[in-house]
């Protein structure tokens, strides 16, 4: 579904991604690991369409469409989802209203009728149960005054509601205690189907105890320098990144 070829991206004069190649198929879970500053979050942001980054070379196809040509909202409507490392506070807009707008704009994009209030509420209730999220949290202004765990859980809830074909989780494990991590991981696992795919961007192996990846890629200085299966993550946990880096440098 996703085909990234020789992707280069820069912020200002600084080139951060220096030729990424990545193929993701339906049903797969990919983990992208790497030391700080290797470009992991940049890759996630570029795929979601953050305008701070300029793509200078390469291509990204998503179900055959040129992803880089689409606005962030069109990418979402095509089935891409980014769970943010730092979910943004949206003062005065409740999660409920926020998701209602999102759902109905996406449906309009896809040529479907908007959902009425009854349908929406029914669907919402089902998804709430999925990620064990409380109604009171959803009627509060989105992310405003939420704890780290609440923010991440809310991201997974949004993912459950939007049912993306490809979900990119950017450092979703950061700042979570072990219980919150387990709940978030369970949510992600429940949402997994043979039709969708997940990219986990993470610094630590910890999350991969709960979400088992099919592929593990190591990103370093803007390139994927090593790929393997879940055993690679375990090896990284044990030996760190240095053995890979020193082999390169």
């Amino acid at each position: 579904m996703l085909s990234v070829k020789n992707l280069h991206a820069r912020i200002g004069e600084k080139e951060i991604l220096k030729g990424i190649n990545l193929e993701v198929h339906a049903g797969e879970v990919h983990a992208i690991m790497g030391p700080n500053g290797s470009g992991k979050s940049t890759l996630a942001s570029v795929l979601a369409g953050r305008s701070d980054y300029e793509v200078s070379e390469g291509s990204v196809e998503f179900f055959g469409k040129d992803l880089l040509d689409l606005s962030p909202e069109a990418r979402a409507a095509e089935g891409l989802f980014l769970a943010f490392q730092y979910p943004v506070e949206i003062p005065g807009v409740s999660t409920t209203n926020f998701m209602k707008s999102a759902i109905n704009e996406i449906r309009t994009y896809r040529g479907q009728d908007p959902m009425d209030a009854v349908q929406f509420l029914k669907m919402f209730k089902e998804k709430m149960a999925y990620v064990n999220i409380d109604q009171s949290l959803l009627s509060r202004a989105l992310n405003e005054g939420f704890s780290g765990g609440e923010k991440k859980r809310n991201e997974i809830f949004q993912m459950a509601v939007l049912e993306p074909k490809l979900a990119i989780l950017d450092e979703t494990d950061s700042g979570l205690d072990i219980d919150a991590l387990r709940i978030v991981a369970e949510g992600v696992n429940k949402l997994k189907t043979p039709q969708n795919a997940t990219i986990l961007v993470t610094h630590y192996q910890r999350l991969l105890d709960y979400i088992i990846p099919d592929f593990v890629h190591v990103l370093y200085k803007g390139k994927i320098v090593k790929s393997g299966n879940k055993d690679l993550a375990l090896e990284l946990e044990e030996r760190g990144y240095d053995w890979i880096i020193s082999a390169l440098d």
Partner: protein
Amino acid sequence: MLEKTLVDSIKTIDSLTQAQQLALGKFIDKGFPTSKWEEWKYASLKHLNERNWQWSPETLSVNIPKPAWKHSVIIQTLNGNTHSEGALPQGIALLSVSEFMAQNPTFESVWKVRNPILDQNSLYDLNEALASDYAVLWVKKGVKIAEPLLHHYVVSGQQDTAVQSKIFIYLEEDSEITWFEQQRSESSHAILSNYVQEIWVSKNAHLTLIKDQDLQQSITHVDHTFIFQQESSLVDAFTFSINAAYLRNNLHFYIDGPQVVSNLNGLYVPGEDQLMDTHSVVDHRMPHSESNELYKGVLMGNATGVFNGKIFVRPDAQKTNAFQSCKNVLASDRATMNTKPQLEIWADDVKCSHGTTTGQLSDEALFYMRSRGISKATAQTLLLLAFVQQVIDKLEHAEIRAELSDKIVNKIQASLGLTLL
């Protein structure tokens, strides 16, 4: 100094009392405010010199539809003339200031020695000169009216007209009213709408004052509202500045007793070719009182906004709590906002704070929303509506809140070409 031709035309007004002539002389000497005046730096009215003003407005009758919600009475001020539509509720009187003072000699002596208005300007002088025997709304002791009193303030003219209006509201002890003022115009000609409202709030009285300012693009509206609060009184003031080419609000609170609470809430949404200027004064003269200011603005098109918030805490006003917040969103690259908080504190045991911000909608928030499939236009709309709602939500009256909310949402959406699904 006023333009020569205007001096000649204004001097043809006869039968002015000595006091009126004195005020007129002051106006002529000073002329219209210009940007050289510190308090009018961003809101010059120099261009008013170019109009051939009709100083005596025509008599006006209007047909404004009544609201569907329950209201106690409609009071109209049409081109400066005030009357009530239908019977006034028990305990409320509407009479001329001369009659009122004759019936209240004790108050008259108090009124005469009240502290002078700060930042008195030439338009106040003009109003004093020409709005002579103005109306007084008298709310008697202990009278509490649950339904809002609706005030239609309307200006109009078949030619360029300067309209002077004035009303005095007198709340006796323990009384309580909601005054909902709809400021409107019915003219394509230039109108200088110069309005003075003075309000005396006696001990334990409670006033909710709501101004809905929605005037046409040919109107220059200057609103001087001076509120004198006595011991343990409460005023909740709301100013919603929605439309007019030029809107200036001079809103002053004079806190003359202890345990007073003054709440000032304001929302201005100027669009293309509109200027909206708020100059607030909160003068804490007595101890143990509290003032809270919350102002918000959304500036669109090439709009100009001004906020100047003065807070004085006099030496006797110990234990004062005074807070001020002014937040603005520039929803266009061409819009400008000028803010100036001004706190002067002479007492040492007080809590005061102020904060002003002016910025654009957060790119982070917009990207976050768009990444969920919400279009940029909808994301902007949702953020702006949430921003203004904070002020609107403070209105307790559900129907007035809904009416104003709709009107403000429509104004913002129309100005920015945004719609919600």
